[in-house]
């Protein structure tokens, strides 16, 4: 089973091969590896580094990428953020907090009927810009909002 998986993932272009194997019962969906953790992006200490790690470079502002977050967070430990991408063919959304020690918080890939939409609760160390980055049809887009924080989320 493991050899099959390794071989398949090394050579396979596609979801076609994997889908076939899943359908055949040879690979259960939960066995397919989740995407490898993007160390370069998650361990970047500034926004530019995180964007570079995501391969996003300088994403274009888009009004079709909607970022919802409170104007003032009562507590920086749990800031609710909701991102909706109305950009056609969006395949992934990443959420970043500019002034956090490590800006990239999470990134999600969507498939099989999932809407390009995700919400999460984030830790914010201080008042900062919250940024969403969406990948659609190979191109990157962004939207941002400033969230004021009254109590630091990192133990303040």
């Amino acid at each position, binding site marked *: 089973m493991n050899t099959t998986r390794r071989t398949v993932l090394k050579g396979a272009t596609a979801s076609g091969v994997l889908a076939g194997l899943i359908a055949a019962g040879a690979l259960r969906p939960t066995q397919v590896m989740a995407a490898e953790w993007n160390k370069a992006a998650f361990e970047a200490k500034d926004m530019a580094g995180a964007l570079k790690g995501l391969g996003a470079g300088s994403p274009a502002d888009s009004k079709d990428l909607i970022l919802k977050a*409170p*104007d*003032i*967070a*009562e*507590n920086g*430990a*749990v800031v*609710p953020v909701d991102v909706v991408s109305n950009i056609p063919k969006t395949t992934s959304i990443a959420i970043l907090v500019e002034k956090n020690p490590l800006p990239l918080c999470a990134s999600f890939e969507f498939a099989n009927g999932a809407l390009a939409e995700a919400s999460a609760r984030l830790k914010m160390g201080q008042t900062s810009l919250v940024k969403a980055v969406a990948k659609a049809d190979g191109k990157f887009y962004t939207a941002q909002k400033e969230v004021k924080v*009254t*109590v630091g989320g990192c*133990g303040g």
Partner: protein
Amino acid sequence: MKQNIIGALCALAVMGGAFAQAPKKPAAKPAAAPAAEAKDAATLEFEKFRAEMEDSNPAELFEAKGQELWKSKRGPKNVSLAETCDLGQGVGKIDGAYVKMPRYFADADAVMDAERRIVWCMVEKQGFKFDDIAKQPFANETFTPDITNLVTYVAGHSRNMKIAVPLNDPKVREAYETGKEIAAYRAGPYDFSCNTCHGVEGKRIRMQNLPNLSTPKGAMSGVQGWPGYRMTGGVMLTHQWRMGDCFRQQRFPQPKYASDAIAYLLTYMIGNANGQVYKGPGIKR
């Protein structure tokens, strides 16, 4: 009973008096309300924020743990609370029990709040030692005691029910009146009483409004949301914890865990909230 409490507080006052020889302005003086406009905008934002947090409240995780604890045979006597503990509604009956406490329990000959009663059951029925529980009775960032999970579970079973402390019971009424006196009792190095912060309308500390616990509406603000998941530190905390933390903020010595004094204060506060709907475990700053 009452004599002992006032006596204890007098002792505190004497200690406090020693510190207060050179009177200083209290550091944490509650601020007056700021410009009305700014306060309302922030308050509205925070209410929205709280509503979002309450939908998928991490308190649910602790409620689930509490359910397991309530139903499992535990302790030296190897029995479950479900089969032995009477919270006032019959053995093992938890629906509506939280909102009907504090109440007088004849088997303990005491007025008890929910936490105190569950601890009593753990000790008397399951054989746990009170001192072991009292050693670390409240949660911190890495540890949540069993009692906290149990209180959360029991409180969850009073969700959307009206507070109904039995003030017609003379023992409960006595506890209420004692609690009212304690709330007015000034002591400690800053000469604070509970009422200094919570006995008047319109006070706040930083961005937190301070409810006036002597009124029905204010009292309900004080009761609502406990036990609560505290966003600061991601910790599950109970009403009993909050009372102790007030003592700390007043620069009073810490109260004994699950004590008479706290039971009386809770009877006063929760009694004042009678008739209003309790929403279950909540979320706190």
